[in-house]
């Protein structure tokens, strides 16, 4: 924690802000990618290799590409005439604040599990990828399989929706 943390945090925040404030939708998506990358770097800086790489693989490799594709295939990247600010920005802000409050509350509540900063420096908990894999395949295998089933169902649902539209136009 130190200089590097603040640099990465600044990068992440700048990316997030740019994603909200930029006019061109594709620029927004690319800025969002910067924010994702910043988060991944933050994970890596905290020695959480698996979380960091999974963040890059899933969010930059898949989600960002998906967002960009969705923009291209639907509306195009032209700026709407009535500006980029939605009329319901107040409600959006309230929801964002509520989510942030819940997350902040959860994070602050979890500090009790960590050693006291003033106390003796304990060895950092080293969660290797192997331990995470063993936990996922052993103790947490049921939640993992349920998530897999859910994702498969979503995939099949998406395919059915797409096929239905195609059959209707013929």
């Amino acid at each position, binding site marked *: 924690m130190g200089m590097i943390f603040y640099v990465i945090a600044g990068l992440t925040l700048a990316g997030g802000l740019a994603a909200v404030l930029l006019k*061109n939708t*594709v*620029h927004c998506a*690319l800025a969002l*990618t910067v924010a994702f990358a910043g988060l991944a770097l933050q994970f890596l800086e905290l020695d959480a*290799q*698996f979380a960091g*790489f*999974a963040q*890059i*693989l899933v969010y*930059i*490799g*898949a989600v*960002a*590409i998906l967002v*960009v*594709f969705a923009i*291209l295939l639907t509306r195009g*990247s032209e700026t709407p005439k009535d500006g980029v600010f939605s009329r319901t920005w107040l409600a959006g802000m309230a929801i964002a604040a509520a989510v942030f409050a819940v997350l902040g509350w959860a994070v602050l509540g979890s500090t009790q599990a960590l050693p006291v900063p003033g106390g003796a420096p304990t060895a950092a908990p080293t969660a*290797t*990828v*192997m331990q995470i894999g063993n936990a996922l395949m052993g103790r947490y295998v049921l939640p993992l399989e349920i998530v897999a089933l859910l994702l498969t169902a979503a995939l099949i649902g998406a395919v059915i929706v797409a096929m239905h539209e195609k059959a209707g136009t013929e």
Partner: protein
Amino acid sequence: MFANLDQIFVLLKQFVVGLLPASWQPVAGVVLCVAAIICVFPALFAITVLLERKGLGRMQNRYGPNRVGPYGILQPVADGIKSLTKEDIVPLSADAVVHFLAPVFLVVVVFLGYAVLPMGRNMTLVHMDAALLFYFSIGASTELSVFMAGWSSRNKYSLLGAMRAVAQMISYEVPLLMSSVAVVMITGSLSLDKIVAAQNQYTWGLPHWYIFTPWGFAGFVMFAIAATAETNRSPFDLPEGESELVAGYFTEYSGFKFAEFFLGEYVGMLSISGLGTTLFLGGWSSPLAVLGWVPSWFWFFSKVMLSMCVYIWLRGTLPRLRQDQLMNFAWKFVLPLTLLNLFVTAMWHFMSDGWERWVICSAILLLAYVVMGRSGMHREHFGPRRYRYAD
């Protein structure tokens, strides 16, 4: 003497770093390694381009470059000077910032992958616990650069090329990852150093490379197919199919930015060849136990260059696929086979050591290959072709 030759680069680095004050040494060591990677692989890129132009020329019954230097071996130098001095044209309607960032991003990301490749005994830049995961997460980011290039050019050919490239890269990334997972299952580690160490054993003087097992061979073939598609090489070079899309996503690039795309593509090919070598071909280990005295880095680089020759050979041999054939091949043939290969790998792991597991695992894979290939061909109705307007 041979041990020293094997470690010559490591010793050289230690010698150079030892000349500096102690406080600089850790940083200097890393900078030296990075500089070596940034010098060696573009040099290999130049050699590969020359080899490709000469080799393709030979295959197509023509000379290839033969004017610059003896036998045209200085052609890469001339190409480099030309691309450096050419005018850099940015289209008027292009998105200048994204247009500039795309090639830079590609080159940076492609070079990052080398950080974890073991190029010889004790020659890995970063010893990472999750090296393979790092490599794939970095590889997934190249798609973004391709999209940035295609979108920012404001050219329909560029955009079409980028869409094709991204769709293709996403489709083939799944089999690429799945075929590598088999190796991780057997080794029990994501660390590339450990994967090489597991293959660096010998029985009767023959190596324990993963390609010499049924699942390893199937995995390697599918890895090679997916890697070829991932690097947009022929026969999967639809994104830059020059007869359809001018040059695909880098149509609007010229001068040094074009050279950067070119460099990114070839360095990416070298890098993924290095990964395939590490995963299936034993990395830097020698092909026979009696050849163990030859330096380890020699084996790594010769395996990589051999893979590049196969790439060139494929390009000279196979015609380009169509977009629907490309997608069908990825999702209906390669992906089910990789999933089956994962199953076979698990069987291989749990069956006792003996000839039975060789027979059973090979039989399952061979049967699946034949049945799926036959049924796929049957559905396509191949036969004498009739062209409505040509008869």
